């Protein structure tokens, strides 16, 4: 009797789960990439008197990105949370000003959430050009962007994901810094580029 119940339960389990398509798969399984600490992000902008370049030279966490095939698209899931305090504009005064503009005290982290890729990247030394969507959350406001990516792999099997995108201060309800009654002002547009250096986990 017990044996029969077990067989029935096993059959029921197969019936209930057998027709459910695996949510994420890619050639049978998903790929996991471990983000290394040598990943970086840079922001370039202009004012009416000069240009500035600020960067976060190293990522202080170890996170993973997961690449899998969804129903209609390639899913790239995972996120990175960067400390606003880590921004360095190579000029202490400008660094402080940028952190203040980005409301570091209220919102100490810049959050990039990866969503999708346009194609399965070919991992070769020559960079493959693809696009993808990300959600960027900055100063308490989030916005979805399409990002241009270059994906490649080097001789040490490090995967390089370079993403770039122009964003605006106003996309995040931020006011570009303006000084002396607006005689000195920062332009709204910022060019953001990030370089994720990763290792495949499987």
């Amino acid at each position: 009797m017990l044996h029969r119940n077990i067989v029935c339960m096993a059959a029921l389990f197969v019936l209930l789960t057998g027709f459910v398509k695996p949510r994420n798969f890619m050639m049978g399984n998903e790929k996991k990439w471990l983000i290394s600490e040598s990943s970086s992000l840079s922001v370039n902008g202009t004012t009416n008197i000069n240009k500035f370049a600020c960067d976060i030279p190293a990522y202080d966490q170890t996170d993973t990105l997961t690449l899998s095939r969804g129903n209609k698209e390639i899913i790239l899931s995972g996120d990175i949370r960067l400390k606003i305090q880590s921004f360095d504009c190579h000029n202490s005064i400008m660094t402080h000003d940028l952190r203040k503009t980005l409301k570091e005290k209220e919102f100490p982290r810049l959050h990039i959430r990866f969503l999708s890729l346009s194609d399965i990247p070919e991992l070769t030394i020559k960079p493959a050009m693809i696009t993808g969507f990300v959600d960027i959350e900055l100063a308490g406001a989030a916005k979805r962007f399409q990002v241009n990516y270059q994906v490649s792999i080097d001789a040490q099997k490090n995967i390089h994901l370079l993403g770039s995108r122009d964003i605006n201060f106003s996309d995040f309800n931020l006011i570009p810094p303006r000084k002396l009654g607006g005689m000195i002002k920062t332009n709204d547009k910022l060019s953001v580029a990030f370089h994720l250096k990763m290792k495949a986990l499987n």
Partner: protein
Amino acid sequence: MKKIIVSGFITGCILFVFSYGGLYLAVKYFPSLFTEYFNPLFNSDGSRDVLFYMHAFIFSFALSWFWDRFKALFKGVFILRGIEFGLVYSVIALLPVMWISFSALDITVAMVSSWFIYGLIQATVAGMVFAKLNP
């Protein structure tokens, strides 16, 4: 009183054009002098722009009263009276303020010197206008 207000207002208008016009041209042609203003010490969100542009009038009304009170001490042609007035204002008011600003704030000698020279020129121009309008 009427002379103080009228000459203060006219001088304010002249200083407005002179000061902000000069500042605009300085930013345009000598941009490197202004990079230090990207500093959290300076207001960035535009909320105080009206106050910033009112400065020429606050300055001219205050100096107009000062001129009316002490104009007898400034002698000679209007240019000399203006220069002496500018120097007196700079030594009495500007120098101590610039001194304390530099000692307390994270600003450079170049920045504080430029403020001193800017104020000296403004007061000198104001003195010349007062010497003509309220001799």
